[in-house]
C-alpha cells in the first residue's frame, strides 16, 4: 500500500515548505542584510532538504538525483551566503542599529 508512504511524503513536503515560508518571513522581518542572509540560509537549507526527502517518499525512483541535489545544496548554500555577507561587509552595507559588535571592522581599522 502506498497510502501511508504518500502521507509521510506529503507531511515532509509540508514541513519543508513551512520552513521556506518562515525563511521568507524572516527576510521581511530581520533588521539588516546580515540577519536576512541568516534567515535565508538556514530556513532554505532545511526547508529544501525536507522537501527533497518528501519528494523522495513520493517518487522513490528519483532518490539518487534528489540525494545529489541535496549534496550540492549543502555545499553551495553556505558558500554563497558567506560570499554575499563578505561582499556586503566590504561595501560597508548599513548594519542594524541593534548591532552590538563588529570585530571585522575593528580589525580592518574602520568605523564599527
Amino acid at each position, binding site marked *: 500500500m502506498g497510502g501511508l508512504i504518500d502521507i509521510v511524503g506529503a507531511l515532509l513536503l509540508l514541513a519543508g515548505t513551512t*520552513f521556506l515560508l*518562515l525563511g521568507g*518571513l*524572516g527576510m521581511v*522581518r*530581520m*533588521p*539588516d542584510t*546580515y*540577519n536576512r*542572509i*541568516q*534567515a535565508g*540560509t*538556514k*530556513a532554505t*537549507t*532545511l*526547508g529544501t*532538504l525536507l522537501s527533497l526527502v518528501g519528494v523522495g517518499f513520493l517518487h522513490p525512483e528519483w532518490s*539518487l*538525483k534528489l*540525494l*545529489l541535489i541535496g549534496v550540492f545544496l*549543502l*555545499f553551495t*548554500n*553556505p*558558500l554563497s*551566503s*558567506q560570499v554575499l*555577507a*563578505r561582499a556586503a*561587509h566590504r561595501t560597508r552595507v548599513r*548594519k*542594524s542599529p*541593534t*548591532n*552590538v*559588535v*563588529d*570585530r*571585522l*571592522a575593528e*580589525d580592518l581599522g574602520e568605523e564599527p
Partner: protein
Amino acid sequence: MMQTSPRSDSLRHIVVLFLTLMLFWVMLVDSLVPDRLAIGAVVSLGIALFYRDGLSFFTEFRVTPSAFVAGVRYYALFFRKLAESNLRLAAIIVSPDLPVRPGIVKIRTQLKSRMGRLMLANSITLTPGTLTVEVSGEWLYVHCVTVDSTDVMRATEEIAADFERYLEVMYG
C-alpha cells in the same frame, strides 16, 4: 597524513577529483551505458586536470578508520545542529518583538588544512544563528543573530569547538 611529494600529491588530487565527478555524473544520468560513461569520463578528466589545485570532497581527507568514525559523528552533529538552528531562528522570526542582538565576533580555529577550514566555515554558517563573513588565515569572523560573548576564546568555544573536534581528526 602520509608524507608525499608534491607531485604525487597533485596526482592523487586529480584522481580523487576525477572519481568524485564521475560519481556525480553517474548519479545524474542514472545509467551505465558505455557512451554516456565515456562522455562523463572525458569531461571529468578535463575538469580534474583544469582544477588540479582546487578542492573536492575528499581533498586532504585522512584515510584512517578514526577519520571515518569522526566523519559519521560529524554529520550526525551537523544535521542535529541544522535542525536546531532552523527551529531557533523560526522562533525568533515569529516572535512579535524580534529578539535579536546581532554582531560580528572573531574566533580562532586550530585547523590547518584548507578543506578543514572550509568545512568549519560552512558548518558555522549552517548552525544556530551564525554566519561566517570573512576567513583570514586562522581567524574567522562570524556574524551572530544573538551575540553571547565577544571574547575570542569564549566565542570559539561556543561556536566552533563542537565541529572542530571532529574536523581535526578528519582533515587536520
